[in-house]
């Protein structure tokens, strides 16, 4: 199976200096796969750097589309059966690709996620490794595994982190790619993973496919202030629930919990930005309702089954 390794870049020329050679080496070693850099209208010299230093890389110089938009455009532009999405701050190891492509062989597998390590080789605390979720406190609470002994086998997970995930291009296009609802970033990878489970696919975690992730050096560090990132993430978490939680009983419970947030924030001091995020999400209500209606038509599994199956259990 031929693959395109797509690095998503925005003003990350310094990051590309290490991530592009690593991706090229892995692509060559696994047998002549393609490396693409999709650039979200950088204002630095990322494109000049790639043209001068790595002419073998295919560069997609795009207008400003945001993370999801760039990923969707780049996947459409790819000409291979498989696609690997990588953040520009992710440095792949030379043998990371074959295990991912092997796992994609069964037709019911939508995506496979890499094993994320910190640059010093320790397990990352950021989300990415063997993800799972539970509906609690008005949101889908995402968990990731931090015990090394439980990260040795290929296993199901809720979603593959968008910073290092492989999938079949056709499945991606069937699912409609990352949803614009979550612009500018965050939760789009959780959403596509959840939707894939909902429509009968599986998402896997592959510990043999190791990548190093310099977490946060892209979005939060350079473009947005931490408070903005937190607000956007909270807003998208709410939109995710509004769009994807279709079980009537669970949905009522989640909405009741969200209604209590304002009271919690006032009375006991809730999470910062939560009520502000609720208002931001409300401004996208029509968009969320349209997306929800679309999900309703195509869903094959219940929310309960998605959570159970993605955690490795039975539905």
């Amino acid at each position, binding site marked *: 199976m031929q693959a395109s390794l797509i690095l998503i870049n925005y003003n990350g020329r310094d990051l590309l200096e290490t991530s592009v050679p690593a991706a090229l080496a892995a692509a060559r070693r696994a047998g002549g796969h393609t490396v693409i850099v999709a650039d979200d209208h950088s204002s630095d010299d990322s494109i000049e750097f790639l043209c001068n230093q790595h002419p073998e890389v295919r560069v997609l110089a795009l207008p400003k589309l945001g993370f999801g938009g760039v990923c969707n455009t780049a996947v459409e532009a790819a000409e291979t059966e498989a696609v690997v999405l990588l953040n520009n701050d992710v440095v792949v190891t030379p043998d990371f690709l074959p295990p991912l492509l092997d796992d994609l062989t069964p037709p019911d597998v939508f995506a496979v996620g890499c094993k994320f390590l910190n640059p010093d080789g320790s397990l990352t605390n950021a989300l990415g490794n063997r993800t799972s979720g539970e509906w609690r406190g008005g949101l889908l609470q995402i968990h990731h595994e931090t015990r090394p002994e439980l990260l040795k086998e290929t296993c199901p997970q809720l979603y593959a982190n968008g910073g290092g995930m492989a999938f079949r291009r056709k499945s991606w296009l069937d699912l409609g790619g990352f949803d614009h609802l979550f612009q500018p970033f965050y939760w789009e990878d959780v959403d596509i993973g959840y939707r894939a489970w909902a429509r009968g696919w599986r998402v896997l975690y592959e510990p043999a496919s190791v990548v190093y992730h310099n977490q946060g050096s892209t979005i939060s560090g350079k473009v947005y202030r931490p408070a903005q990132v937190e607000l956007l993430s909270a807003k998208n978490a709410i939109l995710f629930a*509004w769009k994807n939680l*279709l*079980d*009537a009983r669970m*949905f*009522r419970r989640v*909405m*009741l919990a*969200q*209604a209590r*947030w*304002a*009271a919690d*924030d*006032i*009375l*006991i*001091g809730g999470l910062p930005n939560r*009520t502000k995020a*609720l*208002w931001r*999400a*409300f401004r996208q*209500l*029509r968009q*969320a*309702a*349209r997306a*929800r*209606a*679309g999900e*309703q*038509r195509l*869903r*094959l*599994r*219940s929310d*309960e*089954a998605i959570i159970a199956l993605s955690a490795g259990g039975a*539905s």
Partner: protein
Amino acid sequence: MSEQTTLLLTFARRGEESEIARARDHLRQQFPTAQLVALGTPVTESVLRHLDLEHIIIYGGAQGARQAVREARSHQLTAAAIVYCEPGFFAHLKLEAFALLSGAHKFYRISPEQPIKTIGRLRLACSVLAKSFAAGTRLLAGFFICLIACFYLRLAQLLAGGRRVSRA
């Protein structure tokens, strides 16, 4: 026993001791012969214990708000100083309401990196009213946002095909 008693109100936490100390020093300076009583929470207690105060009223835990106010009023307070360290809208509202109900005649406002200000009873009452109104509005807004969202999203789902999701 001294005739005058002053009250220091704070929900400040560890790391914010300097503001509490500033409030204490100010009250000691303004009322040199007065006893100093502090009102805090179980979280603040450990900080207040180190400040050489005559008495501490702990609000929260076993002691309810009404009981704390009653105890504060029993001291027949001359002045009250509110320390606005704790971030949080409702914490400030509670401190101001406590100060107002404590029966003190004079009020001081101590905010980080700002000079200490005297605040009149009427102004304090207005602040409590405004904050209560804002809290109520926020509460209602949050509730209605969720109510509308819930109704609209369920409607969209039902129009798209109801409860057709299988349990498989």
